[in-house]
């Protein structure tokens, strides 16, 4: 049977495709894990760098990533949620909504380095925030905005229309309905989306290159107007700057492992939660 043979070959080919995908991506995780794990120690996780980045730990770097991520979410979550609420709950269908939708889609496709330049021109220069946690957080926040909006929209749309009607029929106003019924029901979905965006933002480098990141600072940032070290930029800088490439490479392995673990852990939680979320009538 010729046809049967073709089918076997074709299926075999597809099997090779997926195994190579998993193999190569697994390879990255494997290398970073096996070579990075020896660098990780209590000192590495809890102390500041010493001797021109060749010794000590990376605690302020991890903290910097947390600050930037937290800052970006403080900015993007309320804004993105408000935007999703308007699109799902208030907007009459029409030209304005189409324009808003289109701009969200296009914002999502803007290359991350372009966000970096925008942040540099607007937050660093125009508003005069300088290279700082504030500028970096705002820049990352804009990058995260479309992610938050579409995740929130999806969550709001999954709230059945019937319970909105039930609430309104009891004499609740639109805002009372949104606040008491729609948002609590959509909350798990919104949270999942926010967690996924956190995973994405924590690993972004290009937007903070010119807006927030510094290679070597003594200790922790003092205020939102301070420059900051951050894991993704730190990995890059360790590999391209400094005077001791070999010692720095070991630290870069450690940083990569921490970043990879952090991002996979955060995204893993979100994906796991989403798999488990039950629908209203489930």
């Amino acid at each position: 049977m010729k046809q049967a043979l073709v089918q076997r070959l074709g299926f075999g080919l597809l099997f090779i495709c997926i195994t190579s995908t998993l193999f190569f991506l697994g390879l990255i995780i494997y290398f970073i894990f096996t070579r990075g794990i020896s660098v990780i120690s209590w000192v590495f996780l809890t102390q500041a760098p010493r001797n021109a980045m060749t010794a000590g730990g990376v605690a302020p770097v991890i903290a910097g990533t947390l600050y930037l991520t937290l800052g970006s979410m403080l900015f993007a979550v309320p804004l993105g949620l408000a935007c999703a609420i308007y699109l799902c709950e208030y907007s009459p269908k029409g030209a304005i909504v189409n324009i808003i939708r289109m701009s969200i889609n296009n914002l999502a496709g803007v290359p991350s380095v372009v966000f970096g330049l925008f942040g540099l021109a607007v937050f660093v220069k125009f508003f005069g925030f300088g290279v700082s946690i504030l500028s970096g957080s705002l820049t990352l926040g804009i990058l995260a905005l479309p992610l938050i909006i579409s995740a929130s929209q999806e969550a709001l749309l999954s709230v059945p229309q019937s319970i909105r009607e039930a609430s309104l029929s009891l004499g609740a106003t639109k805002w009372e309905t949104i606040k008491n019924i729609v948002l609590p029901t959509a909350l798990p979905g919104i949270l999942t989306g926010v967690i996924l965006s956190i995973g994405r933002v924590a690993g972004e480098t290009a937007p903070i290159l010119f807006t927030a990141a510094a290679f070597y600072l003594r200790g922790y940032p003092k205020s939102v107007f301070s420059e900051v070290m951050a894991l993704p930029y730190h990995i890059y800088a360790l590999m391209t700057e400094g005077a001791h490439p070999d010692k720095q490479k070991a630290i870069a392995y450690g940083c990569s492992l921490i970043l990879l673990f952090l991002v996979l852990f955060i995204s893993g939680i979100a994906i796991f939660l989403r798999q488990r979320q039950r629908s209203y009538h489930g």
Partner: protein
Amino acid sequence: MPRTHLKEKLYKWIFTLLSFSSLIFLIGIVIVLFREGIPIFKEAGFLKFIFGRNWYPTYRPPEFGILPLILASLWVTAGAVIVCIPLGVGSALYLNEIAGYRQKQFLKPVIELLASIPSVVFGFFGMVIVTPFLQKVFNLPTGMTALNASLILGLMATPTVCSISEDALSYVPNAFREASFAVGANRWQTLTQVVIPAAGSGISTAIILGMSRAIGETMTVLMVAGGAAVIPHSFLEPVRPMTAAIAAEMGEAPMGGSHYHALFAIALVLFLITFVFNIAAEIISRRFRIKLGLSG
């Protein structure tokens, strides 16, 4: 007026206003890129800027021709597409058509998880593992080449392409498959002659979005492409894509100088290219949804 009216109106207005934020940021980005990029067109000439073959921004006198950078971006992206189509689309076909329910329940989230690996980690991997490997295999002066960037970028785009393609495949109604089986086609014939054509534009959307992501990707190409601003002739030479030029040079370009404006102009070109990609993807995906009778 009833007591609740004012409060309700207020909330509606707040949400309406905030919902314009995305539009404002998008317009803001366009304005910034034009404002900061235009001066270089005046200084160097638009055509000379786009088609100039020499990028020597810090020489005296400087030369601002970004053709090598544009070609490098396209070159690397083309290479990435060659890597990520078989891997990404192939994996999606496997997941949708061959994998059993439990296998799929497990693999889909795993692929999605892999999509979240940060680009700087890919870049780092390319630098410390792939670079020496390529150098040895091809006996090159440096392993940081267009090939390296293409491999890493392609691998990086694979999970995204796979996820979006898989979604497109799952939209193909089962009735199509059943109709094909009913006339005696086997699974492979059904897949290649019914399912893939039906999902074709959905898969194209996935590939275009993957390309858009690859061409705008910064850290990986900055770390592994080698950085030579010359017109690429082979995959085994170092190149400097647009994003890498911006990221590497912005730090040292004096603010407000020609070099600074030139980098913004590169970003403008990059923005326009990805804009076209995204619009194309949106149009194709809208047609796809209409074709399969899903809501536009």
